[in-house]
């Protein structure tokens, strides 16, 4: 039966088929989409759920809730991220601030709070890590994928994109940049990325409108109100997921001028700044293509 020795080879060929595993899960109050080649998805989903259980601001049994009740935490994942959050708060001069928990709770009701309530909440120090935890878990996902057989995966954690490796054909992943004026499927342009995190923040994400004013979810700790940014959205592209997540929020809060200055003084990320009718793309953004011609676009140099 020697002539059937080729059979195992065929089986191996089948195993190399380029069809990815796909899964959608719900965690952290949003949708997670996984597309993974040559690795199991379930450990990735479990990792996200693990972080959700630790950092959930709404679950009373989360490590975060316990910490906010005044208990000391020995959970290393928690204390590590708390330390990082403090580092970034200083680095961004408070534009990113993980101690706005009271303000966030106040605004979450969906109404404009009374002024004295805002003043009181501004003085609070309740920790809320929602603006950094998806970044942290995306770094953890990449660490896991690096230990797996996979060299190709694309994951969306509620719009935070993890572009791991390249597409199976070796080409970069094409990631759309959300058009703030369109619906959740609308994008104004695309980037081509390999082994990058692409994270966006904007006023279009979670908001309510009252008397013609849009109150979005990105709060400015210095005013206690939604950040009055001249930007509609900011996208960060970098090698570090935590940094990308933090900076997308922080640069939105800073506004264009300060954000551009911040970028010029850094060398570890690139950014896309979205205005009402214009897009500014920093020089290192890989393969940017404008697809919505209602926007004009220019390149910023260091």
């Amino acid at each position, binding site marked *: 039966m020697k002539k059937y020795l080729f059979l195992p080879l065929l089986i191996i060929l089948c195993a190399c088929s380029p069809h990815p595993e796909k899964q959608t899960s719900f965690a952290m109050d949003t949708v997670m989409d996984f597309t993974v080649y040559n690795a199991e998805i379930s450990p990735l989903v479990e990792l996200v759920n693990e972080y959700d259980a630790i950092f959930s601001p709404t679950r009373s049994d989360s490590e975060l809730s316990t910490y906010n009740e005044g208990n000391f935490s020995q959970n290393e994942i928690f204390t590590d991220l708390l330390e990082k959050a403090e580092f970034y708060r200083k680095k961004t001069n408070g534009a990113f601030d993980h101690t706005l928990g009271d303000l966030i709770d106040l605004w979450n009701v969906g109404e404009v709070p009374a002024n004295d309530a805002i003043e009181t909440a501004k003085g609070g120090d309740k920790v809320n890590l929602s603006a950094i935890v998806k970044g942290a878990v995306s770094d953890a996902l990449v660490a896991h994928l690096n230990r797996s057989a996979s060299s190709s995966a694309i994951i*969306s954690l509620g719009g935070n*994109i993890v572009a791991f490796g390249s597409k199976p054909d070796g080409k970069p992943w094409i990631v759309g940049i959300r058009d703030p004026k369109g619906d959740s499927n609308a994008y104004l342009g695309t980037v081509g990325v390999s082994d990058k995190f692409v994270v966006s923040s904007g006023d279009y994400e979670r908001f309510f409108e009252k008397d013609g004013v849009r109150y979005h979810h990105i709060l400015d700790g210095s005013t206690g109100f939604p950040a009055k940014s001249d930007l509609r959205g900011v996208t960060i592209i970098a090698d570090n997921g935590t940094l990308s997540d933090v900076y997308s929020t922080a640069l939105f809060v800073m506004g264009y001028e300060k954000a551009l200055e911040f970028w010029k003084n850094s060398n570890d990320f690139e950014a896309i700044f979205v205005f009402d009718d214009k897009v500014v793309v920093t020089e290192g953004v890989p393969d940017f293509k404008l697809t919505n011609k209602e926007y004009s676009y220019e390149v910023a140099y260091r």
Partner: protein
Amino acid sequence: MKWRIADFIVIGVVFLSALLIWLYPALSETGATATITQDGVSQTVSLEKDLEIALENATVKIKDSRISITDARCPDLVCVKTGEISREGQSIVCVPNKIVITVGKSHEIDAISN
């Protein structure tokens, strides 16, 4: 060692099943959602639930994970004739009423950062 006809049949069968296993996911994959766009305004709907949606000058029907335009006021009814679609990337277009229905996500991009 002589090759007999039976050997070639075995090889053929193995090759065919390999090919089928390889192609199967692409042939059978159903998108869980469809995006319906009319005149630039779009909505995403699940294909898991049977549903009828009234658009301007057209009716969209979702049944058994398949989506179709069942009725439209347009001269040629190309969209109705397209029939039911269910596989990712398939679409129905009605030019007179500016309707596009696409199953699954757009193939031009892999993800949207928002």
